């Protein structure tokens, strides 16, 4: 790595004593010698193991659940069903007033995705829990499933989630989060070229080294200590308090040393049910996702579909940008209504475009719920935007890097979501990339500055 201090040198003090120093991480030795304590490094006497019985269907009505054989399996201590969960229908963003509650902790009458949790087995060993889970008999009436964004939004599509009533999240702005800036139609009318392209992506796994999980200890005080690898301690505590209808003072979350998150540990999926198990059995409970659960059950990055239509002038200026973004939330909201909103705010990217129209949809399908992941609402948008930029440059016969200089935002430029640009540095990044990659650009681009426009 190289620090190029000559850029923005007059905006920075470089004489600090601790900041800017490459100090050795205090936790580095523990990590590389395998002596750091993670949540699972606890051997509690009487520990129970929790295993979920999950839906094999994308969409089905549950006619009945027969636990009799599973309950007799040696080592099984307790089986939890929806009836045991005090506040079974929840959504995690209710803490900041983003509803409606739309997801069950344990399924009641329906399952809406393949892998949805139905009952939780608590047993003396992982093996016993796993074996007993096979003996739970669920009678399903399989329902038609909606597996893609296009199917979900087609007229007459089966409704994925009755708590929403339609297959998209309804914002105060309607069926999508909207950004309206300038006059996009006038922009297209005056453009020399128009290019409309569609981009897509599949779901992506966070792939942390350490899978999602927790271990809960019921304390003599009546409190519950939950050793967890959540990315958000109080978010988990407060949601658990709601789901279990338990005073937050009874909950004690301990964490903070996590083997990779990447956004995969911001859903509250293991702690409430494990704490409930500890409460109802009086014994410590471990609920740790298998690698298969981490990959197929834990929420991935959403699949997305993006339609970008641009109007561009012969000299390279983009004069209108129209974006329709569709985020595949899967069966439940989790964090996706926010992700689609964040996506809306991100367009048109780090460029100044006077006419912008964005519709960003959070779409429900009978799929594993997606949620936050590194680059939430932005990564796939950036893929689409920057491939589109490459196509536009070639359309007008410009060098792709020079084309970006022409459109790059500067301090003071108004963004489409009506915030003035501050602290811009795109131009300087491109100038340095031009040098480092030996990708020559015209001198006038090397003279540009993010801080001011020329002339």
């Amino acid at each position, binding site marked *: *790595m190289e*620090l190029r201090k000559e*850029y*923005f040198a007059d905006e*920075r003090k470089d004489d*600090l*004593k*601790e*900041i800017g*120093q*490459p100090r050795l991480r*205090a936790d580095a030795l523990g*990590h590389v010698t395998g002596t750091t304590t993670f949540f699972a490094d606890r051997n509690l006497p009487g520990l129970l193991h929790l295993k979920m019985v999950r839906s094999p269907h*994308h969409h089905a009505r549950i006619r009945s659940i027969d636990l009799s054989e599973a309950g007799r399996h040696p080592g099984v201590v307790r089986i939890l069903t929806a009836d045991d969960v005090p506040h079974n229908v929840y959504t995690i963003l209710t*803490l900041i007033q983003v509803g409606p509650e739309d997801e069950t902790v344990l399924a009641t009458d329906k399952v809406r995705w393949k892998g949805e949790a139905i009952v939780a087995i608590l047993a003396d060993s992982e093996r016993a829990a796993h074996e007993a889970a096979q003996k739970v008999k669920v009678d399903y009436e399989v329902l038609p499933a909606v597996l893609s*964004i296009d199917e979900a939004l087609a007229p007459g599509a089966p409704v994925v989630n009755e708590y929403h009533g339609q297959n998209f999240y309804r914002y105060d*702005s*309607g069926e999508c*989060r*909207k*950004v309206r800036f300038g006059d996009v139609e006038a922009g297209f009318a005056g453009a020399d070229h128009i290019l409309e392209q*569609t981009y*897509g*992506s*599949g*779901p*992506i*796994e966070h*792939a942390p080294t350490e899978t999602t999980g927790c271990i809960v200890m019921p304390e003599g005080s009546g409190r519950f200590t939950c050793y967890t690898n*959540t990315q*958000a*301690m109080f*978010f988990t505590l407060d949601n658990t308090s709601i789901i279990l209808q338990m005073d937050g003072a009874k909950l004690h979350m*301990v*964490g*903070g040393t*996590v*083997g*990779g*998150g990447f*956004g995969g540990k911001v859903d509250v999926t293991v702690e409430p049910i494990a704490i409930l198990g500890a409460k109802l059995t009086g014994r410590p409970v471990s609920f740790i996702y298998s690698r298969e659960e981490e990959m197929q059950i834990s929420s991935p990055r959403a699949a997305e579909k993006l339609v970008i239509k641009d109007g561009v002038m012969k000299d390279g200026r983009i004069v209108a940008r129209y974006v329709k973004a569709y985020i595949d939330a899967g069966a439940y909201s989790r964090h996706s209504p*926010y992700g689609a909103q964040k996506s809306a705010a991100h367009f048109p*990217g780090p460029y100044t475009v006077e006419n912008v129209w964005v519709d960003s949809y959070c779409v429900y*399908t009978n799929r594993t719920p997606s949620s936050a992941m*590194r680059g939430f609402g*932005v*990564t796939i948008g950036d893929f689409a935007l*920057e491939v589109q930029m*490459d196509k536009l440059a070639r359309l007008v016969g410009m060098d792709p*890097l020079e084309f970006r200089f022409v459109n790059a935002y500067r301090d003071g430029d108004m963004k489409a*979501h*009506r915030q003035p640009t*501050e*602290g*811009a540095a795109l131009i300087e*990044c491109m100038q340095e*990339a031009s040098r*480092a990659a030996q*990708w020559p650009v015209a001198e006038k681009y090397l003279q540009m500055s*993010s801080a001011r426009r020329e002339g």
Partner: protein
Amino acid sequence: MAMRQGRGVAAVNYPTGMNLGGDPTQALVHSTPTGNFMVSLSSVDLGQGMKQIMAQICAETIGVPTDRVIIDTADTDTGPHCMGTFASRGTHRAGNAVIAAAKEARQVMLEVAAEELEVNASDLDTDGTGNIHVKGAPQRSISIFDTALAAHFKRGRSISGRGMFLIPRSYPDAETGAMKPSTCYAHACTVAEVEVDDETGEVNVLTVKNVFEIGRALNPKMVEQQLVGGSWMGISHALYETTEPYYPSREHGGRDFNEYLMPGPGDLAQTEVIVLERPAADGPYGAKGPGEMCANPQIPAIANAIFDAVGVRIDTLPITPERILRALKANGAEDAGTVAH
């Protein structure tokens, strides 16, 4: 059939933090009797090194070496509220909270030292090695060790401070989408060079040159680890990863690291990272949040490089050999050869 080379560029920005509920994080700082400093937080270290960065921020602000600072975090019985570690917010939000708390603690520390030295607190400064001295008269000094002892056993003062970060919540305008979704923005530009085998569709990423503007590299070694790791993840997202290779079909989903494709060490490009620092006005010592951004620009840069190499656009991620071969075939390229189905 041939190996064809190409290069592509991409430029991106990325918002720091989120704005749901004001994005709060709080911090508490107090001294032990011998002048070490405890920082209490509930922020989570995901492996990126948040504890270390909070220690350096606290140390800089109070004016002590980093190894005098202990981070106690992610225990809800002891740590004040933090929204969590996500949205590239950890360093920025918790860092600002730690600075505010450390400033308050530093002020008490200087007041105690002033009483001991019989001077005004405003005339005192720290030397960064564990001492407090009169500005312009370094011989008139007291150690922070002795200052803390005096506070605890003689002056009855608590060398401590409270800090928090909170911004007014932004509600998007329903009609226009006017909103303030985040605070400062980090930036990047990446140039990727690839080699594409037009017989197999396989892509070998030769070099990835990244320029990242991150506000301030608080600890350059840790910045490097995060930016290089992110750059590798970008390659992985571009070419390999998905839980459902034939989305929207739910078949063929990976269940373990044998089935879920990721690049191995031999598949990673020669990676260059260059860092620019334009301090953010609202950042802790100018820092922005580059944790998410650093994995983004490689994806379109590689996609554009593949087009440059073989003349096909793959507009759906991941860009697998199969997709490249099908596109080459659709393009009528002679070199596509036999296409596997």
